[in-house]
């Protein structure tokens, strides 16, 4: 193992699934710095950061669900339409029945769950490919949105707008910063330290090699610097603004879903199904249930994203959510998920989504027209995945490693001849 790889492994945990994240984090940092220079400091200024988060939080929420769908080996094209459909339903019930906003949110989530059960049923129990089911859903719920809303825009009341356009309140002593945001930053810092400390303890209990102390210091120090910087920026914006509520929702979801995908049986099963469905089935995984849950979960998150968007724009309209599915899918693939399923992480997808968001935002700040922004985003997606495919063909995963290749001689080991030479054909049930 080369030293670069060793370092990468100890810094990032280094299994194949998150190796691409390594490259993406650097890409993200590079893009941020590039735009920071090109825009003369506009990119990282508090106002821009705040609008960046509130503008992209719903796409990133979709990316969480989409990651799980893609890991399980499916796709969901209907999320934009579902978001729009739920948005209009929620706006309508608040307008017509004057439901309180928090009840309306529950209604929205329930509608999302119902839609998810519908799609999950077709995918998991009937066996219609998710591509088809959700393509149908895309049309179905887009039409449903216009049917219910009469193709009109319906405004939502003030209280509801908090989830999309709200900020942490200004409370406590006058520190020149938004106090709750400072507190949030502090909590994040403590969490980072505890996480690393517990990670080391776990490794020790396993009797596995514990990374040297200086690696742990780097692993803690770098995120801490980022968090402290972000906290001060978010807390130091225009009075009345701070870290957006939608950003908090996103952060909570990221923490919960990262935990589920990594540390629970349900999460493991999603990866198992996507990695090798037949093997998973023969290991006792309930294939249908996993597929159903994944599709249903996606629709619930789409419902949430739709409501946040409606809250932010203060009204639900017939054009909401168009193209969101593509942004979410792009985020997941840029973030290192495999097209064939079985690989990918929540955090990777978030990084992938942020790359797209910063790119979009930075180009807009530079005054680049939306035509060219789209062209650039398309190329970035293509290159990111092409790079991954190329690396896989070479049998390696890391960015830096591939730059070093000309200096190394080893070639990937050939497939075992004994297995290539079996007389008994490839049918899995011969025998």
């Amino acid at each position, binding site marked *: 193992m080369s030293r670069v790889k060793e370092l990468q492994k100890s810094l990032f945990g280094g*299994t*194949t*699934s998150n190796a691409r994240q390594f490259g993406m984090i650097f890409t993200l940092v590079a893009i941020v710095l590039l735009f920071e220079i090109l825009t003369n400091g506009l990119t990282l200024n508090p106002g821009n950061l705040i609008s960046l988060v509130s503008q992209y939080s719903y796409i990133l929420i979709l990316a969480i669900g989409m990651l799980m769908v893609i890991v399980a080996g499916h796709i969901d094209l209907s999320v934009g339409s579902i978001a729009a459909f739920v948005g209009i339903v929620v706006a309508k019930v608040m307008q017509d029945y004057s439901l309180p906003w928090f009840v309306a949110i529950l209604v929205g989530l329930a509608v999302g769950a119902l839609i998810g059960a519908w799609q999950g049923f077709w995918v998991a129990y009937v066996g219609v490919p998710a591509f088809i089911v959700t393509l149908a859903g895309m049309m179905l719920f887009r039409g449903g949105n216009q049917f219910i809303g009469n193709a009109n825009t319906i405004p939502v009341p003030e209280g509801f707008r908090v989830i999309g356009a709200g900020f942490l309140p200004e409370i406590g002593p006058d520190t020149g910063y938004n106090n709750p945001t400072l507190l949030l930053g502090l909590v994040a810092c403590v969490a980072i330290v505890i996480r690393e400390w517990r990670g080391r303890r*776990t490794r020790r*209990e*396993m*009797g*596995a090699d514990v990374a040297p102390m200086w690696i742990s210091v780097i692993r803690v120090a770098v995120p801490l610097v980022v968090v402290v910087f972000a906290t001060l920026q978010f807390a130091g914006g225009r009075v009345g603004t701070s870290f957006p509520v939608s950003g908090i929702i996103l952060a909570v979801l990221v923490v919960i879903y990262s935990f589920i995908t*990594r*540390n*629970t*049986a349900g999460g*493991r099963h999603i*990866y*198992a199904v996507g*990695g*090798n469905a*037949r*093997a*998973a*089935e*023969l*290991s*006792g995984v*309930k294939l249908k249930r996993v597929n159903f849950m994944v599709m249903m979960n996606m629709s619930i998150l789409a419902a949430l994203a739709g409501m946040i968007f409606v809250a932010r724009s203060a009204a639900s309209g017939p054009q909401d959510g168009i193209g969101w599915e593509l942004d979410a899918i792009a985020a997941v693939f840029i973030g290192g998920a*495999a097209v064939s399923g*079985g*690989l990918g992480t929540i955090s990777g997808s978030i990084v992938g989504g942020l790359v797209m968001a910063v790119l979009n935002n930075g180009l807009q700040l530079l005054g680049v027209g939306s035509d060219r922004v789209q062209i650039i985003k398309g190329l970035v997606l293509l290159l990111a995945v092409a790079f991954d495919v190329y690396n896989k063909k070479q049998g390696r995963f890391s960015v830096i490693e591939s730059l070093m290749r000309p200096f190394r001689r080893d070639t990937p080991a*050939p497939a*075992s*001849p*004994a*297995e*290539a*030479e*079996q*007389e*008994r*054909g*490839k*049918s*899995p*049930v*011969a*025998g």
Partner: protein
Amino acid sequence: MSDAPVLLEMRSITKEFPGVKALSDVNLVVRAGEIHAIAGENGAGKSTLMKVLSGVYPYGSYSGQILYQGSESRFSDIRASENAGIVIIHQELALVPGLSITENIFLGNEPRRGGVIDWKTANRRAAELMAMVGLEEDPDTLIGDIGVGKQQLVEIAKAFAKNVKLLILDEPTAALNEDDSQHLLGLMREFRQRGITSIIISHKLNEIAETADSITILRDGQTIETLDIKADGVDEDRIVRGMVGRELHSRFPDHTPNIGEVFFEVRDWTVRHPIAAERLVSKNASFTVRRGEIVGFAGLMGAGRTELAMSIFGRSYGTYVSGQIIKDGQEIVIKSVSDAIAHGLAYVSEDRKSIGLNLLDDIKTSVVSAKLSKVISHGVIDQVREHRAAEDYRKSLRVKAPSVDDPVTTLSGGNQQKVVLAKWMFTDPDLLILDEPTRGIDVGAKYEIYGIIQRLADQGKGVVVISSELPELIGLCDRIYTVFEGTITGDIARADADPELLLKQMTSVKKAQRS
């Protein structure tokens, strides 16, 4: 027959793969107008030899000479050998289900006029060819709508459309029923009358003895002998002797079995094929396993051993028709894989890579994957316990990997197999069904796997081993069942087990069934 001119001679063919010599100095002489059989156990090199002949392994990738019609041939690919009139029909038919019989016959070889397919000629010739092979169907019928036996005839018609001189059939009757098989063999005899030469590879030795004129026997990649069926008076027994004639030396760890009472019993297990519902892949199969016993299942490819095992293991194959499972004196009902695991069953599949492992996983994830509940507390996977469990197996099974965090793809076949074994040992099974546990792994690793199997039996577990290697079954098992076309045809104790007896039982319908 032996005075006919030689059509094909393969001289000292040697084909090596990295680390393995698949063919070593093999010679084959086929005379014009004869039916020449090639026999040998699985892995003897039959298919490799045919791939050399047909250009799948191009000239230059092997050493030796191919003399065809009197001159040396150097085929660069299948197309080149087909142009010379050598057509091979593989066991997995190469037909397109959604196209018609005519379209399949001329696929890639369409009669054209001015760049456009000449359907008139195609239909006329298709009708001729179909008459020739005795296929009575509308030429516009889709391939997917006719049975396997007729599909085989379409393959042969397709070969004739290419102007075949030497027809090679790889296990042509393996998937056919008795009638279709007889028709096909009759057809081959008809072709002989017309002067067409055929090579047939078959496990069904009675068919060879009845149909072929001469036979070449391969064993371990070497030519053992070539016999004239009539002149040498060759019968099934004679072929078997040639196929298995090797010495069994100590390829197995010493082991004294400690066998207890019967604890697992399957009664009258009957299963339908998942698609062809009229076909039974298992017919009234009954067997028993004792504690501490290693029970072998011998049978040819397609005999239904894997199907039987997978069907018992949570109805993972085919459609369950009838049958009972009795464990520890009580009938148990197993409807899903999770039921099976909960009842202490484990099934290690024959195909490690496609259905045994998730190749994206690392070692520790694989080891715990069939019983995650053992490492979960309060709904959360305990990484320490997971790691320790995997680490224990890595040491006790001597998996050659620096760490359990390594992906399973970095392991050799033998070590991957140990990981799969660990995965199922981790479920604390009472009965382990191991399907081809040593396939594709080297001799040293095999020895270790045998040791693991014996240790499992010594712990009082029952172990079922399905294997196509007879010496392996004889060396390892305390008792061997033979399976033929879904029926259990024999129950042979270790003391009586010899390859000839086994081969006879697994190739014939003598005992149990001829309905």
